[in-house]
């Protein structure tokens, strides 16, 4: 009933091209922001932050990054784990080399460094496409993990080969290290996710996004109408890697605290983020959120249901969890190949007409 665009007239092109053109959508967005910033921090505890919120927020940033590259620009990448590792190690080196600089700046700089690395590994995309490019980015994944394992400079010659985040504060509140309060870690990630989503949305609704989508949909036609494929593809790699680098830095510094590269940023991480993007919906910022939420929440939900609700042994539940998640992904992709974002779009279209669909 209330989900209507009737009567909501646009009198300027700026109004027409805004992110939420329908009033109800806009208000719902403000409500979600309000709850996320003003309510959740006061009610969450350690379990919720570590099991649900931090992974969701951080994976959502990574999914936004990968969605720009794969969903918007059509370049399949299996190097997400490697690029997250670049962000993490860049952040670690910056944190230990310049302890007096704010961690927030380190995280952003880590994103910038990852963007530069992403551009280098994006160069093959100018010649190769599709599966072959996926294989090339797979090489990036293995190479990056290998180099972080093999060059001691990256982990400051520590005996264990691990990197661990020293304690850092923002406005006097510690956000990394053992003393971190759950809400502080949550807030840092939330701020980064909100800004990432806004920036990504602005890029994708403007000319940059149109160039990327043009390359995705038909690269030859894109070139004929004036898109420089070199610039378009490399800028997609840069922007995508920037967000993925930020995600990696937060994953290491705020979420895990200590990281062993092969374990935290292995090939499984690349696949996990790719699944999020595919399940959430290629070419949709909302889809990145939905996909991250789906793959973070589902295992937690299943565990609570099987172990807590039905009283099954933990190991049995853990194995079954894989089976169920896998089966759900397949079932889901058969039912709606365009992901959760498409389901959401269809639901909204139905809602606009409800309750008189004719």
């Amino acid at each position, binding site marked *: 009933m209330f989900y209507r665009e009737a009567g909501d007239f646009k009198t300027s092109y700026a109004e027409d091209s805004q992110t939420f053109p329908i009033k109800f959508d806009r208000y719902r967005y403000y409500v979600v922001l309000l709850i996320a910033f003003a309510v959740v921090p006061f009610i969450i505890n350690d379990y919720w932050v570590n099991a649900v919120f931090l992974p969701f927020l951080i994976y959502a940033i990574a999914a936004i990054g990968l969605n720009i590259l794969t969903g918007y620009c059509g370049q399949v990448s299996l190097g997400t784990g490697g690029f997250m590792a670049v962000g993490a190690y860049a952040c670690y080196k910056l944190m230990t080399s310049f302890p007096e600089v704010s961690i927030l700046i380190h995280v952003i700089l880590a994103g910038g460094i990852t963007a530069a690395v992403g551009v280098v590994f994006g160069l093959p995309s100018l010649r190769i496409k599709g599966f072959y490019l996926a294989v090339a980015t797979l090489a990036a994944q293995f190479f990056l993990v290998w180099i972080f394992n093999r060059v001691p400079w990256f982990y400051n010659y520590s005996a264990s080969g691990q990197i661990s985040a020293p304690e850092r504060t923002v406005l006097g509140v510690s956000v990394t290290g053992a003393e971190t309060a759950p809400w502080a870690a949550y807030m840092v990630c939330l701020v980064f996710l909100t800004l990432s989503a806004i920036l990504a949305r602005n890029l994708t609704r403007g000319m940059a996004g149109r160039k990327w989508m043009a390359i995705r949909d038909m690269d030859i*036609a894109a*070139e004929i109408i004036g898109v*420089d494929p070199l610039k378009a593809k490399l800028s997609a790699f840069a922007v995508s890697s920037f967000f993925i680098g930020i995600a990696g830095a937060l994953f290491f510094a705020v979420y895990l605290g200590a990281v062993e590269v092969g374990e935290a940023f292995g090939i499984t991480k690349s696949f996990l983020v790719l699944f999020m993007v595919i399940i959430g919906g290629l070419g949709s910022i909302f889809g990145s959120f939905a996909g991250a939420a789906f793959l973070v929440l589902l295992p937690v939900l299943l565990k609570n249901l099987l172990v807590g609700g039905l009283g099954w042994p933990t190991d049995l539940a853990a194995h079954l969890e894989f089976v169920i998640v896998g089966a759900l992904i397949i079932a889901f992709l058969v039912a709606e190949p365009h992901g959760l974002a498409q389901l959401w779009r269809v639901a909204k279209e139905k809602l606009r007409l409800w309750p008189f669909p004719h």
Partner: protein
Amino acid sequence: MLDSAEPYTTEDGRTIGPVVMEMKNITLRFGGVVAIQDISFDIREGEIRAIIGPNGAGKSSMLNVISGFYNPQDGEVWYKGEKRPSLKPYQVAQQGIARTFQNIALFEGMSVLDNVMTGRIRQMSAGLVAQAIWKGKAEREETENREAVERVIDFLEIQHIRKTPVSRLPYGLKKRVELARALAAEPSILLLDEPMAGMNVEEKEDMSRFILDVNDEFGTTIALIEHDMGVVMDLSDRVVVMDYGKKIGDGTPDEVRRNQDVIDAYLGVAHD
């Protein structure tokens, strides 16, 4: 012979400008196949120039040479009084040459509006950071170019499908959206590769009207390939006829119609 630098007036009172593009002795080979052999012709400002010929005559190859998609082995392309070096297709587009395709080449995953907006690439220069923040130049550019795009959308009467994804449109409308995208670039030369292919009579009439209106109202120079002889002879100011990669005729529709080579190769005669 007309002076290439001087404008002239046609019989029906239209003023045709000086030569804007000149092809000089173009030869294009693919391995052993000669697609275009030593062809020269020019395109004048404000005219509708048709390229016709049987299948495989090299018409589309010629259009691809003009739009920079192929680089000819021999010959020169002169554009606005200067010899054009061998450029990438996107650089040619930046110079103001827009085109449509024989098989529609729209971006299927984008809305009509976004498709037409891509035509404005040449006019938009805000950097990535400015676009990400969506303030100042980026926002201003977006609005200004949206206005220009809306004029084209109005002109081609596709307002009602503005926000529709292109993949949902029928063929005839897709052709029109593609024309809109090319037109949004405000090109100095508009290349149309078989704009009427696969259309019924009514759609052909619509498209012919749009082509004439575009030429008339914006003064856009148009070079087009078309198979429907009635359409070509009615629309165009001058016609180039190609056969097996060679030029066999060049002139006004009437001159071409009387040319014996053209009749033998392409037009044929009525058997009575």
